[in-house]
């Protein structure tokens, strides 16, 4: 019998941010947009490099939480293609599971005033 942690590998803090950003970007989720979304989420409290976003996206894809495909090259990107990402159902489940303790923690903090 598989343990719960093996069935859905837990998400780190940055992975949660990246998955949330991909969800927020909806149909337009590619590197630059995801990076912008994350910068908006952390609200300037943390420096986020595009390299770390890319490595995290790669890792999440390997875990099966994301699906990616290559888009068309555009001139404003110097003729380079985009890589689009989409959150899979397993990714959404993992995100909910990762956010559950945070919600509880937030509730406790609010009750304390």
């Amino acid at each position, binding site marked *: 019998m598989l343990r719960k942690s093996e069935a859905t590998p837990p998400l780190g803090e940055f992975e949660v941010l990246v998955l949330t950003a991909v969800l927020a970007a909806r149909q337009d989720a*590619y*590197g*630059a947009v995801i*990076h*912008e979304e994350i910068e908006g989420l952390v609200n300037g409290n943390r*420096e986020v*490099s*595009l*390299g*770390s976003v*890319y*490595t995290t996206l*790669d*890792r999440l894809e390997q875990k099966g939480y994301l699906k990616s495909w*290559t888009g068309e*090259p*555009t001139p*404003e*990107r*110097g003729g*380079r*293609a*985009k*890589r689009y990402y989409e959150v899979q159902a397993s990714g959404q489940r993992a995100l909910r599971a990762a956010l559950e303790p945070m919600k509880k923690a937030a509730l406790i903090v609010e009750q304390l005033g």
Partner: protein
Amino acid sequence: MPDILNGDPAQPFYRENEVEQLHLFEDASFITCEPASYVDCEPEIAPAGGVDEPDYDRDFVLFSDREMSDLGKKRVAVSFKIAVSVIAAPEVQPIAPVQMSRPEPQRPTPPINAQFLLDLFLPESHCEEFLGDLQERYNKKVPRLGKLRADLWYRKQVFTSLWPLFRAWMKRSSKGSLARVVCFGLRLVGRESWANALRKVADEERKRSI
């Protein structure tokens, strides 16, 4: 007040203000028509004693019946000539509209060629996408922050991205084995594109300084 409706023959046909209008017509007829038109007039209508004494009845008849009809004939003739010349004229090929190609706005160039740094740690396809994303964000930042700060942002992104990319590459390729690290070092040293890329960057910097 003259009885116009009943046509009193003792009274003139027109009123005072109409006389002025007729004078205007008369002047206009002299301007628009050649004096020779009087020569062409029929004898019973043409003035016998010259044009010194104004005869409004006669002038009115001349203007309305003859001069206007002469003018009409002239216009018809001119129109006919124009129509003939238009029909007889060779078919003119329509001039193709000139395509005014608007010069493409010059896109700002990133400060360094990061490709040679990034393709060490990223797969080739990912490297293109990464550089494309960097370029896109840089293009957006230049008008907002200015060239200098956008350049700083770009450099910072490249150099802060190297460490996570290197770490991910290590994890992916070596899984902690020392041999892989040595292989990477050898690849780094023996890489010809490194030298080429460095030369390219140096050339670009030299051109910029000039």
